[in-house]
């Protein structure tokens, strides 16, 4: 049976891609951010996941406003990145796992999550940058991937409670897959930031700290925030926290924090990473 080994959340700011391309990991501006990742490299080298489910939001590469699904799941053998319009290097394709994707899709729809199924899906920086951070090296593709896209662009957005339930359904779907394999769930974006309006540049360290704490052991506590509350507290693009919530929901076992990092600012954003281990309940019972 498939096993969920853990979850990692990270900021996905586009300029991180340029910093990687230019080798700026040790530059004084970037170092406090990139320093969050060596513990993840070490842990991933030990755990060796086979598949990564990447929960993120598309920023206008794959989806336009003509059709904007609330939740969508990729079901392709391969996912391509393309030019997003502002000079980010285009990544080479990422392998998919279509059989596993279709299992997730079957399970999610049976579980009353009527997701959009995408046999073709371009993946943007919110998918590629976190994978580049976790497995550095332009041509490194050690895992198969399943993209899961949450609409954080066009309101109405799904609530935090709904995203947590969606994550739990993803967790149940992963654990019901018969093949023996290790699955990592990644949630990308955030934390607090706002790009638009006269409040542009808004960052809320206190709210971020509260989220980083609650998401580990008490994610249900975050469901008290409505979407307008979240926009107010985290900024209009800080709503990407929803991707973190889905990731956290998918961790169905006993969850413990392995590492976290928080640094202000990267670009206009309070950057953060959080690494969680998931000890499946059935393994614990067997121990």
């Amino acid at each position, binding site marked *: 049976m498939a096993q969920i080994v853990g979850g990692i959340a990270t900021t996905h700011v586009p300029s991180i891609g340029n910093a990687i391309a230019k080798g700026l990991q040790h530059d004084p501006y970037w170092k406090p951010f990139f320093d969050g990742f060596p513990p993840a490299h070490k842990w991933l080298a030990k755990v060796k996941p086979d598949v990564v489910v990447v929960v993120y939001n598309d920023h*206008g590469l794959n989806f336009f406003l003509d059709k904007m699904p609330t939740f969508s799941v990729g079901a392709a053998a391969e996912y391509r990145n393309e*030019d997003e*319009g502002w000079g980010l290097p285009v990544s080479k394709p990422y392998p998919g796992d279509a059989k596993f994707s279709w299992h997730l899709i079957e399970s999610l729809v049976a579980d009353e999550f009527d997701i959009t199924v995408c046999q073709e899906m371009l993946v943007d920086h919110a998918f590629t940058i976190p994978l580049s951070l976790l497995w550095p090296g332009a041509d490194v593709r050690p895992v198969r991937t399943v993209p899961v896209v949450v609409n954080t662009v066009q*309101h109405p957005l799904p609530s935090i409670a709904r995203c947590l339930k969606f994550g739990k359904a993803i967790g149940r779907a992963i654990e019901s897959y018969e093949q023996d394999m290790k699955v990592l769930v990644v949630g990308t974006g955030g934390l607090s930031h706002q790009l638009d*309006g006269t*409040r*542009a540049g808004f960052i809320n360290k206190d709210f971020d700290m509260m989220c980083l704490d609650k998401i580990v052991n008490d994610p249900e506590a975050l469901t008290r925030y409505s979407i307008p509350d979240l926009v107010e507290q985290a900024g*209009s693009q800080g709503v990407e926290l929803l991707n973190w919530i889905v990731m956290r929901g998918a961790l169905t076992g006993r969850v413990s924090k392995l590492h976290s990092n928080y640094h202000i*600012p990267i670009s206009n954003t*309070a950057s953060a990473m959080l690494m969680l281990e998931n000890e499946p309940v059935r393994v614990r019972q067997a121990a």
Partner: protein
Amino acid sequence: MKLDHDIPGTPIFDGDQAQKGYALNQMCFSFNKAENRAAFLKDEDAYCAKYRLNAQQREAVRARNVLKLIEAGGNVYYLAKLAGIFGLNVQDIGAQQTGMSVDDFKAKLAAAGR
């Protein structure tokens, strides 16, 4: 149920904005492709006309003014592709919207960490 929009300085890209800004955002979406960015730079009037921008949107593009572009229905993720054509990043557009210099805007971001 409509959202409470009353968060000062904070546009909410909802159904009203999505309808209002459709043409503008569609043009910006086209800028994912290098040949479209080149076509815009070659003949901005013709390119805006091709996407049927209304007068408000056309004027906001001409003014390179982010707040006006948002008022005309632009979504910041799509507008970022337009800004990219002019070599502007999110600190540049943040500075423009807040009426600050880029250095002051960056200092404000850094101050949020202290």
